[in-house]
């Protein structure tokens, strides 16, 4: 599969073509921040963004989706979103997160709702051009990626290296196939971008290899950090909601006014919320703030690795930014565990 170079003008023409061809979501400015949103013109695309408020998981697992519909007691019908779409500008750490979510939703029991959307997605990744205030992907091995995307864009000077790795990527390349092959200089400059990103996307420095986290956590249940930090926790779930590897959900039935038909709806949920572990009858199996707070870090650093083989933190830093009381910095928490109690 080809690696080509295109100038900014050509890239724009290509993106305009994609927009004309179907559903395209790209990174755009929103207030003083960025978000993935329906892309209406190439000029709105901001590949120079630092981080989006919400990760692109929202296109595979929307904040709210209909899982099933029902009409009276006649039974339930599956709802599937089968329209193809293209995501443009996914940063490597988010690509890594999507790969983890794929493992979660395709493993054991296949979640056909997630997987249908996932199969319809073409992921155009883009190497980071501007480091966000709290990114630490460099520490998590996710500052760059080698797989999990269909096309990778890397800005080198005044042009982009466009690297298509999959059939899906080839399909949307269109005229870019005819663009000049990337020469040794461009490829070397791309290597430099990768090296720089691995080195500089470290606004916080994790003082351990991520792989050692499960062992560290094994011995840290009673560390004072859980109680200390959680005293300032709103239990607002912001860290959960913005996390590209948080996928817990709630399910409920919504009925129409006729009270006969309606939908079984899936919503994002979060383990930091007070009633996450409450059962019918009211017993809350995780009622202390500190226990919920600890659960989140254990899930990321110990439980998920046991399930999917990866630390479930890709260093995007969104939780750090989203937390109003500034207690959600995983690097700070994990580093604290190294200290004497």
């Amino acid at each position, binding site marked *: 599969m080809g690696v080509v170079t295109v100038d900014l003008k050509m890239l724009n023409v290509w993106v305009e073509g994609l927009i004309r061809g179907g559903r395209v979501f790209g990174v755009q400015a929103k207030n003083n921040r960025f978000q993935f949103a329906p892309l209406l013109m190439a000029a709105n695309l901001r590949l120079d963004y630092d981080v989006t408020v919400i990760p692109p998981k929202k296109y595979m697992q929307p904040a709210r989706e209909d899982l099933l519909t029902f009409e009276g007691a006649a039974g339930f019908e599956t709802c599937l979103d089968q329209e193809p779409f293209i995501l443009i500008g996914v940063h490597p750490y988010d690509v890594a997160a999507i790969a983890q979510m794929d493992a979660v939703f395709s493993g054991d029991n296949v*979640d*056909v709702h997630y997987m249908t959307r996932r199969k319809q997605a073409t992921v155009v990744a883009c190497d980071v051009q501007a480091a966000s205030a709290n990114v630490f992907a460099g520490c998590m091995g996710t500052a760059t990626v080698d797989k999990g995307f269909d096309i990778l864009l890397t800005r080198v000077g005044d042009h982009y290296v466009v690297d298509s790795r999959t059939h899906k990527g080839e399909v949307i390349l269109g005229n870019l196939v005819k663009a000049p092959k990337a020469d040794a200089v461009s490829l070397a400059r791309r290597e430099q971008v990768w090296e720089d990103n691995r080195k500089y996307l470290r606004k916080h420095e994790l003082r351990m290899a991520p792989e050692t986290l499960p062992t560290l956590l094994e011995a840290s249940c009673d560390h004072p950090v859980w109680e200390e930090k959680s005293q300032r926790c709103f239990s607002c779930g912001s860290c959960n909601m913005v996390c590209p590897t948080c996928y817990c959900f709630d399910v409920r039935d919504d009925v129409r006014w006729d009270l006969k038909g309606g939908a079984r709806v899936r919503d994002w*949920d979060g383990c930091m919320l007070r009633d996450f572990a409450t059962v019918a009858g009211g017993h809350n199996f995780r009622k202390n703030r500190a226990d919920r707070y600890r659960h989140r870090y254990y899930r990321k650093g110990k439980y998920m690795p046991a399930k999917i083989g990866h630390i479930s933190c890709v260093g995007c830093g969104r939780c750090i930014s989203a937390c109003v009381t500034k207690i959600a910095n995983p690097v700070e928490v994990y580093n604290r565990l190294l200290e004497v109690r």
Partner: protein
Amino acid sequence: MAQTRSSQEKDIYRPEPATLAKVQPVTEMESFFELRLDSGKELGHMPGQFVEVSVAGIGEAPFGVSSSPTRQGSFHLLLRRVGNVSSALHRLKAGDKVGIRGPFGKPFPVDDAMKGQDILFISGGIGLVPVRSVIQYVFDHRRDYGAVTILFGTKSPADRLFVDETDEWKRQPDTVYLESVDRADASWKGNVGVITTLMPKITIDPVRTVAVICGPPIMYKFVLMELNKMGVPSERSYVSLERHMKCGVGKCGHCQINGLYACQDGPVFRYSDLIPVREAFR
């Protein structure tokens, strides 16, 4: 955008239709339900597993299956009216439709660790519901097991469940059935006190006995302490834990007990496996 279609690929969240064959009030708060899958197939569960029951428009909730797979043709639930789904089910009648997913979860080890052993059942309140499935299974394979001891505790005499059936259990060979109530009424002649007050009254061979335990969260600690005193090794005690098993398939996250999923790794756990799990007994 979202398109509805009948699923070609299996949808793990889509319930299959079932019909209530019988609905019978048992206590003020609890009713008994007999169900059949509309497909005509057996549920295919093992004792200790649970199903997700849907009432369209109300929602879905997990309930332990109360009958043994040895009793074919239908399966049983016994529900306390505490949530939206259980309350809605109480308003339904025979012939009404519900949705079923499952069976899910790990069962009690009736065909391995329990085989050839003496069995001690300890259940409190609606904890008897999934345990009844195991008791029936054991009685239906009576020669595969040794002595059977059943302890059942409830708040009051009016809260006792499966009263006709427990009378039969008393008459089974090599079986001891004891019950207790926290608060007696004028008619009650039996034991009064929490379930652990029954434990000194029984004689078991602790290294030949497997304990099957299910009850409210508060019960486990005291029962397990008592079993320890009686010399039953933690490797031989099995508990069924309650959590909000919302999806039943290890995705939604609600039922996690530290790193374990009650819906997949449980709800039945070997007690020795739970000793390092801090969130197990809360």
